[in-house]
């Protein structure tokens, strides 16, 4: 019998469960290695060579090089591990979280100051909230680029 995973219909959300953790093991362990200053320096000096020291999939390496956190998460990354890449790049947690929405840093910050993203329309896939698949990416610049 299949396991019950009631969280799969939450829009714009990937739950880091045992299956995702299995997929992302080496990706997340690579991220952990960046907690050492010496590793951060080696990674920055030659990212591709550093990534090649890890038994990650080619797609995981490309997702890291692209700094595409949504892509990393689809491949088993977890945000607390991926945050080590952001720290290496000198990014705050808010910049990292915002980067996954398509909004500019300013747009995301303003949304938070105005009370954050509304839950309305964002509980279940199929509603019409701003986190729903048919409304991505968010942010003015993205909409212009896509128009």
């Amino acid at each position, binding site marked *: 019998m299949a396991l019950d995973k009631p969280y799969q219909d939450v829009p714009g959300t990937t739950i880091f469960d*045992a299956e995702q953790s299995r997929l992302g093991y080496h990706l997340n362990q690579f991220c952990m290695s960046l907690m050492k200053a010496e590793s951060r320096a080696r990674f920055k000096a030659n990212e591709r060579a550093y990534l090649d020291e890890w038994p990650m999939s080619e797609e995981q390496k490309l997702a890291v090089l692209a700094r595409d956190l949504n892509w990393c998460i689809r491949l088993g990354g*977890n945000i607390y591990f991926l945050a*080590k890449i952001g*720290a290496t790049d000198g990014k705050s947690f808010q910049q990292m979280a915002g980067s996954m929405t398509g909004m500019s840093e300013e747009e995301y910050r303003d949304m938070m100051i105005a009370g*954050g993203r509304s839950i309305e329309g964002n509980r279940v896939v199929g509603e019409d909230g701003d986190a729903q698949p048919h409304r*991505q990416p968010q942010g003015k610049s993205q909409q212009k680029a896509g128009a």
Partner: protein
Amino acid sequence: MARITASVYTSHVPAIGAALDLGKSGEPYWQKVFSGYEFSKQWLRDNTPDVIFLVYNDHANAFSLEMIPTFAIGCAAEFAIADEGWGPRPVPVVKGHPELAAHIAQSVIQDDFDLTIVNRMPVDHGLTVPLSLMCGQPAAWPCPVIPFAVNVVQYPVPSGRRCFNLGRAIRKAVESFDQPLKVQIWGTGGMSHQLQGPRAGLINREFDNAFLDRLIADPAGLAQMPHIDYVREAGSEGIELVMWLIARGAMGDENGPGKPRVAHRFYHVPASNTAVGHLILENT
């Protein structure tokens, strides 16, 4: 005999620590957060316990994917401050209470909760930000701290019901310790927030305030809430709130003290990506 005198609940947003450490706490954005803790700092000075039992979660700092303990109790004499990638926070080292920690581990494991005993564990913002919020920037923390780390990063995390019952077992353990210690239990993390994906930035004031109401008045009922309600309503990282139920379970209302007194309540949006909630409950 040791006893639990009060419980403290607070979010543990890393940006709050950064704001303090970088001297930004006077900025209007951060003043709105810190103002909610002015009362609490004075309260802690007036009600300094002998030990703080601090429930928090590690954020991929002490624990990588090599080992993922569901409940880990810090039994060491001292805990280093973790370097989370931005350098360690410039805060005092955390002194433990090995004697009480070992006693609690023995009692709670015999009550069927499988704790992992940890003797080397750097502590991250999950533990140090609550201390900073409640103590400011002292040269040393006011008392020993027993770190109690809960896995809320990899699903499935422990249920609210299990956390609440664990709190009850911790109370029983504390009460059987043969020294007259005053112990506070702190539950940290939350409130609503999501740090990942297109739904990042989610905040749900209605959920958060209902959670605070029920935590005070109906904790056993609140403990029945399934994981999916936290995820859907409070965001994927809002699940941290199950840790508050450990502290609440340790207040032991049904076994004598009755309903605790609400000494302080505060709620503010936002701190970075997160809704900040804070409560102080005293055993009467």
